[in-house]
């Protein structure tokens, strides 16, 4: 369960959004610069909100700001870098100590198999293609079973079939493991396949919330209408 109110002043406006989400997948949708990534960054602990609160499964992350390594969060950023000095196997299991690796053997095997990492397992990141690196980054993010998963343009630069496949895998795992998933993108097609619920944002504010069907039927603003590619 994620219960948060994030307030953060940006150069031209203030981001102020409430989110209440159980074990579900929620999309933050809006034009570039609407504050979506700021919210993810505050939830992950990379930035500290000016005000508000962040609670995840009854654990308070803010205020006071909990150090990011104490938050059970998986944050897949737009250009998530892999650790270049470690092979794929070590990148994926990076967050697990030796004992946990043994306990989680089945889970690691499942990640490895579903994300098609077998052939890459001993490769070094500099030798991976963009799509392969993205799969490894996703595996690394989910390997320690975080309670909150944040995806910032998770499929940017990937071809549509691979993006669809990754979205399907993410959906399966989220439903089985029950973590909260927040995904950010400005492409509705990407988000629609992944998240049934959407929070639409503009200039740091929530302008609409509901299902994608509701958003398409009655977009609250002309900008949303344009982003959804609907006729005026």
């Amino acid at each position, binding site marked *: 369960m994620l219960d948060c109110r994030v307030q953060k002043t940006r150069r031209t406006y203030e981001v102020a959004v409430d989110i209440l989400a159980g074990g579900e997948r929620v999309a933050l949708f809006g034009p570039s610069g609407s504050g979506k990534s700021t919210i993810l960054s505050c939830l*992950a602990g990379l930035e500290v909100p000016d005000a508000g609160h962040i609670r995840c499964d009854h654990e308070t992350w803010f205020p006071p700001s909990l150090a990011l*390594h104490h938050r059970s969060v*998986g944050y897949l950023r737009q250009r998530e*870098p892999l650790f*270049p*000095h470690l092979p794929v196997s070590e990148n994926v299991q990076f967050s697990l100590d030796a004992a946990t690796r043994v306990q989680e053997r089945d889970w690691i095997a499942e990640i490895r198999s579903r994300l098609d990492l077998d052939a890459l397992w001993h490769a070094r990141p500099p030798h991976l293609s963009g799509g392969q690196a993205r799969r490894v980054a996703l595996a690394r993010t989910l390997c*320690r079973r975080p309670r909150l998963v944040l995806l910032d343009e998770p499929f940017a630069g990937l071809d549509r079939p691979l993006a669809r496949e990754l979205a399907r895998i993410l959906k399966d795992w989220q439903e089985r493991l029950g973590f909260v998933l927040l995904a950010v993108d400005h492409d509705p097609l990407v988000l629609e396949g992944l998240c049934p619920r959407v929070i639409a944002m503009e200039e740091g504010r929530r302008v609409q919330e509901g299902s994608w069907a509701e958003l398409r039927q009655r977009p609250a603003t002309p900008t949303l209408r344009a982003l959804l590619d609907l006729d005026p």
Partner: protein
Amino acid sequence: MPKDLPRTLALSLTALFLLYPLWGLASPVGHWQWDASGLSSALATSFGLTGVALAIVVAVGTPLAFSLRGATRSTRIAFEAVVLLSVLMPPLALGLLLALAFGPATALGGLLLHLGIPTSNNPTAFVVTQIYASLGYYLLGAQAAFEAVPRELEQSAALLGLAPREVLWRITLPLARLGLAAALSLAWVRALGEFGAIMVTAYYPHGIPVQLWVDLQDQGLPAVLPLLIVFLLTALPLPWALRLLVGTRGYA
């Protein structure tokens, strides 16, 4: 023309240029003289005390260089100016200043003498002088090595649940290792070869550079050339091996 011919030519010419002075070893200077006891004593002094000095330089310099990343810009600029000052100081001038600043007439020198620590012509003076001569080189190299590690990678590691100490150990240090090795090599070479400052502050015990000078004065070139060969053969392996050990996949 083969694709790598220009590079091969450039490398060969540079290597030739750098190695050419060694041709001097073949000069007809007379029968070489080996002073085994003087040689072993100078080697022990140089390598033993340089090892101690470098251990201190690394122990102090590494955390300091790392902490500079978090310092404000103005702090960094001011500190770098101080470090550069120590690096730019001509060795002889450094020796003279050290002798004056730690002399028995100064408060610090007087205190140390009172505590039974003479500030010249002993192993302590030797080590302290080497630290002054090499710390700046190590700091500048180590700082550059740490700066070259992308912060995003450290953030990713922290987001995966690693405490700052683990991030340092598993991400920062492995990625900075090549730069740190280069900094250590430079500091080693600088400390081991130090002559001008050591000459003033720690003429005794004789390290290799001072021994070379003494032999030149007393016995001439036939005594200097064999010592020089031994010096080069013993000083080269550490920095060379260090570079080989850390591999070429470093990021700094």
